């Protein structure tokens, strides 16, 4: 029984200790990373712009073929999703 208690205690001490150490390191590395990025990285991109992403739909692969480079890009992009 006592051994059980002591196991619990050490689990608590080392567990909480480790959690704090780990997250402290994460804070440091994240801060470091952000600093480097903002210093040397490209200008930040507003997440809103990320909404523009088009998810290529297979429907495009059914488009009838025309020699039109715009259309072509769409067609092939869709096929590309999985062609190797």
């Amino acid at each position, binding site marked *: *029984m*006592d051994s*059980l*208690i002591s*196991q*619990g*205690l050490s*689990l*608590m001490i*080392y*567990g*909480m200790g*480790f*959690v*704090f150490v*780990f*997250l*402290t*390191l*994460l*804070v440091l*590395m*994240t*801060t470091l*990373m*952000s600093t480097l*990025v*903002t210093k040397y*990285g*490209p*200008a*930040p*991109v*507003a*997440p809103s712009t*990320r909404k523009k*992403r088009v*998810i*290529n739909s297979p429907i495009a692969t059914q488009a009838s073929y025309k020699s039109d480079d715009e259309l072509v890009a769409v067609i092939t992009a869709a096929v590309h*999703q999985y062609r190797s």
Partner: protein
Amino acid sequence: MDKLLNIWLASGIYNLGVGQLIMIVVGLLLLYLAINKKFEPLLLVPIGFGGILANIPEAGLAFSAVENAVHFQSPELMSKLSAVLGLSSNEPHTLLEAYYNSNASTHASASLLVQDSGYSNGMLYNFYSVAIASGAAPLIIFMGVGAMTDFGPLLANPKTLFLGAAAQFGIFATVLGAVGLTSLGLMDFSIQDAAAIGIIGGADGPTAIYVASLLSPHLLGAIAVAAYSYMALVPLIQPPIMRALTTKAERQITMVQLRQVSKIERILFPIVLLLLVGMLLPDAAPLLGMFCFGNLLRECGVVDRLSDTAQNALINIVTIFLGLSVGSKLSADKFLDSTTFGILVLGIVAFCIGTAMGVLMAKLLNKMEGGNAINPLIGSAGVSAVPMAARVSNKLGLEANPQNFLLMHAMGPNVAGVIGSAVAAGVMIKFVG
């Protein structure tokens, strides 16, 4: 005529045990809470329904082929079985006991034996083996969660990670409580059981199920039910604690608008986290690895097909089977005993302590920052229970000051809590796994 008798003797109503009756009522209760009270319905609807299925008499949906064979014991099969298990008696409980404790190869041959007599695993038992025993389902769901998580607020204010750390104290305090109850002789938990129960305080479903499946599968049902129920109760559990530990002045603190976070930071964060986990705590690698993978799929912006599938079709499919599988652990014989009651009590204690520690840590940080930078209300969000806990912080903030929108500030500690409890899970798996 005997056929009619057979039907009656094999009917559920004739064989219904009181335990099964109670558990069916529990299943209906879970459905009621999920559907009418919106208690985490995505999980509790499948769990509740699975719980009812698991307790249908004679159907044996939640049992292995061997358990089913022992239930409908034909004498000569029983003797063959006891031979395989190296027993002298055919007494059902002895057989099952021996079966549970037998090594993997004996296990396998016992299964093969009863299959020859036409017994097979119950549907839910198979779901459980594939989804949970393999460890796959919680990990895949964690991947989907990663693909749904926006680390923006955390990246904008990394020190909120400390709040996510403090809130994990609930986990370990509960472990201590569990072993305490045991040494007082009130309960009988092994250290593994205690660890698995503690993780309820992590307020993170997949993590709790993953840890329980590794450390004490026999408690998985109660632990999962407790975890999801209490998460749903966060809006009732947390506010009193938060009010008790904060002054009106503190609750009125407004925080500065978060900075814009760049795409590249969002992409690098899951990789940094993965490397840190890999270097410090390999035991947390499956859980946090899949979490980071999902988040990278989301943020990298070149695999939206995969990201969308991870957060929709795939996670939905896995959730259906995870829920039914958890329900299979609600069979009367496995669920109905005093330990379940103990688990429910300890679980809520874990939540309360976690909440309190989060708030106190926030107060401390606030002091260190000059007393007017951090609203302590966001500390409670550190237990995770995303985004419920963050919304609670926001609600109390608005109460104290109608212009005080804390939600985005609370999302930081909120997702930090997810990381925190995954790390705690890793520590437990390493120490007592």
